[in-house]
């Protein structure tokens, strides 16, 4: 974004300018600069949760919007995500110590027969950034792995991902198993992946199809709010 990076001393920037610079550095995928800036803000007494939301999540939201608008492409988004991940690695233990708010809990994994996890990893990261506790069970998950994770972790949300036309029908196998066991309604089920669409999500009995990580976060937040309201009314 800027050609003047070489002359810039992050520690000399005022807080607002530093946060703005972090947005630019995230956009440019500058991992070391993000790590440095996170540490500077911590030294200045910023709460980890504030750094996460105002600097990292806000910056990544700009990246997400420009990706959706066709201004940024997958490689640039991945570099930005790597930079955000590095910043989050510093903040994560501190967030646990300072008791940052948790919006909800999610188990997420790529379905059986599928090893693709770029989209899933982006969703995991953005969900964590939005205050969700995420249990990522990785790739190539048979229905048994999902069931075990649901039993052990007791999440609010189950997320499933697939990149292949040949593997996406497996999401229905998982949802059908939840129905058979009478536990389908215990969870919000979100699905995503390149060959999916809203119609497919409805057809297999998911609560929603999420076309990208930003939509997944917004959908998850809305679903959690609806759940809380339902519990409050009921």
């Amino acid at each position, binding site marked *: 974004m800027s050609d003047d990076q070489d002359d810039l001393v992050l520690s000399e920037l005022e807080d607002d300018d530093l946060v703005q610079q972090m947005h630019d550095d995230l956009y440019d*995928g500058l991992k070391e600069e993000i790590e440095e800036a996170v540490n500077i803000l911590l030294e200045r007494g910023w709460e980890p949760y504030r750094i996460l939301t105002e600097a990292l999540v806000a910056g990544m939201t700009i990246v997400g919007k420009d990706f959706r608008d066709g201004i940024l*492409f*997958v*490689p*640039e988004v*991945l*570099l930005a995500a*790597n930079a955000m991940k590095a910043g989050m690695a510093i903040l994560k233990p501190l967030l646990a110590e300072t008791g940052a708010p948790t919006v909800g809990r999610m188990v997420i994994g790529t379905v059986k*027969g*599928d*090893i*693709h*996890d*770029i989209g899933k990893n982006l969703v995991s990261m953005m969900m964590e950034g939005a205050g969700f506790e995420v249990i990522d069970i990785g*790739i*190539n998950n048979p229905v048994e792995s999902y069931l075990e994770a649901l039993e052990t972790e007791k999440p609010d949300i189950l997320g499933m991902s697939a990149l*292949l*036309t*040949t593997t*996406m029908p497996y999401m229905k196998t998982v949802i059908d198993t939840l129905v058979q066991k009478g536990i389908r309604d215990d969870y919000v089920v979100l699905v995503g992946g*390149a*060959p*999916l*669409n809203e119609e*497919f999500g409805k057809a297999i009995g998911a609560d929603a199809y999420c076309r990208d990580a930003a939509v997944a976060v917004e959908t998850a937040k809305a679903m959690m709010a609806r759940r809380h309201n339902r519990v409050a009314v009921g």
Partner: protein
Amino acid sequence: MTHDGIAPARSGSVLFIACGALAREILALIELNGWDHVDLVCLPAILHNTPDAIPDAVEAAVRKHSHAYDDIRVVYADCGTGGRLEDRCMELGVAMVPGPHCYSFFEGNAAFAAHEEMTAFYLTDFLARQFDAFVWEPLGLDRHPALRDTYFGHYETLIYLAQTDDPALDAKAQSCADRLGLAYERRYTGYGDLATELHSWA
């Protein structure tokens, strides 16, 4: 072919609307079998990287040429459209090639499915030739080689599904595997189910 496709010769009664990545193979089959009544139009092969755009592009081509031909066939498999191309072809009343993608129909859909090679990354003759334009550059690996393992970390083998016996392409595919950090395997397929399907149409 990558970005422009090819236009039909307008001499036959049957039109194949195909992915540009299949042009060479289809033209070879047309010539080999003497299908003088068959014309070929190819859509830009780079649609391979944006499957969402394939159904609309195919529909536009069908509508553009339908008045000039007795019969139109679509030489695409599902190609990552999640069933949307099949739905669109049914709406348009045109047949398409069965199977998930060209890797599968070149090898033969049944044989391909039986392998269950989850950790294999495939190249065809076309993709071996066009590796940089279709894989390396679109994934940004020319600019950001450090991303290689983010994309390919879970893959183990690059399998070159060879339509022809071409030592130069074999060597090229091997070098693609090396660049991606994957083991290499060459598997000769010929034209597989593509030949069978086009025979039944022509």
